[in-house]
């Protein structure tokens, strides 16, 4: 595959319009699901929609890194968990305003991603995968040692986030609306970014770094920016999740969560950001439905993953290249 082939898609304004469609479909599908849940008076349904949208946001941010930048981060649970801890820690200091907590979650997660990324980006391939995993595990143990914030067990958040003291997130429906809105905004913003000159540089760096460098362009800065954006968005997802379950523990940063995020991204296809939304829906629904039948639902998830990887090898490769998403 040539560089030109890789980078052309989905650039250009026609590409942008095409890219908008899956975004709108995603948002409408979530909104419709929420409307149905609300109409049926099912608070469980609203909870599930909000939770799925939050995980979809995290998966989309990872898909941006993997699909566009070729940065296979196996530590994406870390920024997610940092966002969740931002809610907990700010809450302990009586800061619950969404307009503070959301930027705080974004900024602290982005900061972590940049600090660790500056080192991880010096390496490639399996080194990068292992180092992102190791740094995520580091922050996991740090969180577990924060005895003032629950230590190993974690602790309940003081209250859900507010808007200048108004308890706007008290109902799960409102929280789901916020999650869907953030997901929609993130998808739109990332679509713009992917179609921009910056997105072109990211994909070019993934396809052929040597050529890019020969042109006098340095992919390092672009990748670091990508890690900041991806990490920050995962932080927002963490803020949503912490509000959803009203409890934060190091388990949010368990490396199995990083693995499941990768599963979402790859199952949905890395070619398009909206694919990650589909993957997130599949995994969360699988989790919920299998979880009802057996406590060993992870066996089912594992079998699905191995089957997909072994059986669809060729197709998956095509998906990874973004040629048939």
């Amino acid at each position, binding site marked *: 595959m040539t560089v030109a082939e890789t980078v052309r898609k989905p650039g250009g304004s026609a590409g942008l319009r095409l890219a908008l469609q899956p975004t709108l479909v995603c948002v409408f599908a979530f909104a419709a699901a929420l409307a149905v849940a609300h109409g049926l008076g099912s608070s469980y349904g609203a909870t599930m929609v909000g939770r799925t949208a939050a995980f979809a946001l995290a998966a989309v941010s990872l898909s941006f890194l993997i699909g566009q930048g070729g940065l296979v981060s196996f530590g994406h649970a870390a920024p997610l968990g940092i966002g969740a801890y931002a809610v907990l820690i700010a809450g302990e200091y009586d800061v619950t305003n969404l307009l503070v907590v959301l930027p705080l979650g974004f900024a602290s997660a982005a900061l972590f991603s940049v600090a660790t990324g500056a080192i991880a980006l010096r390496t*490639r391939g*399996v080194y990068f*995968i292992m*180092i992102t995993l*190791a740094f995520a595990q580091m922050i996991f143990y740090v969180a577990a040692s*924060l005895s003032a914030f629950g230590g190993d067990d974690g602790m309940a958040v003081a209250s859900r986030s507010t808007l200048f003291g108004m308890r706007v997130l008290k109902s799960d429906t409102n929280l789901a609306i916020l999650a869907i809105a953030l997901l929609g905004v993130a998808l739109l913003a990332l679509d713009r970014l992917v179609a921009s000159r910056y997105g072109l540089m990211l994909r070019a760096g993934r396809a052929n770094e040597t050529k890019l460098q020969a042109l006098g362009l340095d992919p390092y800065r672009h990748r670091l920016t990508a890690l900041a954006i991806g990490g920050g968005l995962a932080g927002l997802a963490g803020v949503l999740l912490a509000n959803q379950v009203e409890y934060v523990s190091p388990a949010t940063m368990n490396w199995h969560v990083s693995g499941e995020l990768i599963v979402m991204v790859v199952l949905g296809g890395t070619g398009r950001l909206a694919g990650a939304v589909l993957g997130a829906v599949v995994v969360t629904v699988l989790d919920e439905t299998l979880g009802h039948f057996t406590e060993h639902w992870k*066996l089912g998830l594992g079998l699905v993953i191995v089957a997909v*990887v072994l059986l669809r*090898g060729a197709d998956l*490769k095509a998906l990874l290249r973004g040629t048939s998403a």
Partner: protein
Amino acid sequence: MTAVLFVSQLLNGLQLGVILFLVAAGLTLVFGVMDFINLAHGVQYMLGAYLVAVLVAWSGNFAVGLLLGLLGALVLGFVLEVLVFRHLTRRDHLEQVLGTFGVILIVTELVRIVFGSAPLAFPTPAALAGSVTLMPGLNYPVWRLVILGVGVGVAALLWYLVNRTRLGMLVRAGSTHPETVSALGVDIDRLFLVVFAFGAMLAGLAGAMAGPLVSVEPTMGDRILIVAFVVVVIGGIGSIKGAFVSALLVGLVDTLGRAFAADLLKALIGKSAAAAAGPALSSMLVYLLMAVVLSVRPSGLFGGRTA
């Protein structure tokens, strides 16, 4: 900080180091020979502990149980390689991550179905359960000394295998120039099978050695796996020597850090601040070590290849 405490922590650190080495050796060889990332290596450590625990209880004899258990770990390594891993070796790293992650979920859940989530009893063999007086005031458990001895013995054996045998020559050549080795008529897939199964057995041995000291449970492989990754990264992918040096380094830094970092901090920043920051810092030390090594040498201490 007394000398007795220091020496015993030093020994604990070295003992953690050799356990890490046994796990990391298989990982680094598999990375090196096939550029293959195997997340499921921690599962093989866990399976080793379970196999040996069950077989020792069944046979009533530790040596018999250990031998059978290692044989079982070797066979399981072969089976997993044939069923799953060989189909992933020429794939994208992303797919390797995904496939081996799936294997972790499956095997961990199967173990949980068979044995439950509660830790399995793994008593120290009676003959080695006591402790010896190493110096006045220092009684050190014999089992931990046995672990040290086994670790050093395996390291020496590996050194001989890798540096003095034909198979080792192929492994070394394969880790730096896989295409050339393959072009010279060596079946690199078979080489991978052998290396993989052997690595699985070493991980199983590590699990069996650590069994009496840690709790034998389905998730016991998770923690060791990630520290083993750190060891491999610091040592340099594909280098047995690097894995050995960095395993001891990581074992010492982790153990001594946990034992003494809080005290050092107390002297530096005061008691209350140290009580808060000490545990966080000591659990970060190993990763900070990795960050420092990588910022100086991105391909690890002994890594020849820039991955």
